[in-house]
């Protein structure tokens, strides 16, 4: 661990977890800088939820360790737990309580509970009119918003939200994300939110952690990723033209054109244009274009990055 990572709210080293005969986490090294919102993405079943539960101390690693707010996750004391916020994928709540009782029950456990934030979220999430209803009777969307509300009103230092907008329609999705993002902007909360659809959460994250096959295959600043990658199109490229510079991340061959996604800039482009006597058109790479680059390369696939489109 470097000195800089010491103050990171999450620092995992060699995190390994065997779960029901499978290796759910395979030696994860991961650290999350303070005050950032990280999108935890990856295919279904890749280990996102397991990783979150381990960070919360709800699962105990087989090997390695996770420091959560500087304390070993499975040994978190009450003071540290009070600084965490968590929304489970199934947004577990107490079904037999009324919405208001549920909120008061959780508020009671948190000395830092902020009634201004509570009032704000009740209004934004349209939950005021269901305060007297039983939690168990709520539709999934309202139930999920309630789970987000009770995870944020104590203004946690670190909030882990597992698929926090999966049950929301597009309108509430942006409302919920805006309120989640507000905690980062107002309080400097460190946020980790997972989704298997990056586009759903893109509006409020500034970092991306990709989990694939129980491993963290990328953990980067989103702006940096966008800045360093470009889509290059070489119009009029002949079938013989092949570009295998080390910065090429993927190749698509269209009739009469070659499209490359590269981690390169101006200097490399000029050199390539000179070398092959071609003109390269530069475009930014959208988030969907970046996604595949962050996945673990399939075993033994070093040979070819090329696909024929």
């Amino acid at each position, binding site marked *: 661990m470097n000195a800089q990572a010491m103050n990171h709210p999450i620092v995992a080293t060699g995190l390994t977890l065997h779960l029901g005969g499978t290796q759910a986490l395979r030696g994860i090294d991961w650290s999350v800088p303070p005050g950032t919102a990280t999108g935890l993405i990856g295919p279904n079943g890749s280990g996102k939820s397991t990783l979150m539960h381990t960070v919360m101390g709800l699962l105990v690693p087989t090997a390695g360790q996770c420091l959560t707010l500087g304390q070993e996750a499975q040994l978190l004391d009450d003071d540290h737990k009070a600084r965490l916020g968590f929304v489970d994928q199934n947004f577990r709540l107490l079904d037999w309580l009324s919405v208001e009782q549920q909120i008061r029950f959780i508020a009671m456990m948190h000395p830092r509970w902020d009634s201004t934030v509570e009032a704000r979220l009740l209004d934004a999430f349209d939950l005021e009119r269901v305060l007297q209803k039983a939690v168990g009777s709520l539709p999934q969307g309202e139930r999920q918003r309630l789970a987000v509300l009770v995870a944020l009103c104590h203004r946690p230092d670190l909030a882990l939200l597992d698929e926090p907008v999966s049950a929301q329609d597009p309108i509430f999705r942006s409302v919920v994300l805006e309120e989640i*993002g507000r905690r980062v902007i107002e309080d400097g909360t460190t946020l980790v939110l997972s989704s298997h659809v990056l586009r759903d959460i893109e509006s409020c994250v*500034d970092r991306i952690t990709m989990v694939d096959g129980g491993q963290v295959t990328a953990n980067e600043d989103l*702006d940096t990723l966008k*800045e360093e990658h470009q889509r290059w199109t070489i*119009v009029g490229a002949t079938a013989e033209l092949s570009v295998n510079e080390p910065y090429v991340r993927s190749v698509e061959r269209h009739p009469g054109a070659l499209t490359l996604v590269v981690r390169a800039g101006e200097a490399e482009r000029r050199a390539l244009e000179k070398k092959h006597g071609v003109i390269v058109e*530069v475009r*930014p790479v959208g*988030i969907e274009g970046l996604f595949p680059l962050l996945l673990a390369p399939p075993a033994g696939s070093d040979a070819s990055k090329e696909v024929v489109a």
Partner: protein
Amino acid sequence: MTIPLHIQIDRHSGLPVYRQLVDQVRFQATAGTLEIGTELPSTRALGLELGVNPMTISKAYGELERLGVIERRPGKPNVVSARLAGTGAADAEDELRRALQPAVVAIRQLGVTTGDALRALEDLLESDDQEPRSPGDPTP
């Protein structure tokens, strides 16, 4: 007093968020819609308005300072730098070149000759002259 900045952030764009901020503030400062000495919002205030992490705003302000577009003053709001006054013409040409870059890509892709492209640009400028836009509008 800080004035609201007219910034549009597209989170789905392939352009980094901080880069979008830098480009738009620099354009408005060069075009004069942001006057010299204009006070800029704090990173937190602008962050709340745009839904962007204050650290990202701070990164953009840092880059704008490096480019000489704004001045950072400890404990006081950042302001649009006076340095722009001396370099106005060169900055305006830089902005124009950046704005025309997508047109260059289109011209190459369509295989249009330089002469035809310049004539098309002249036509567009002429027809635009007959319907002047409000001077503050930076985008077509």
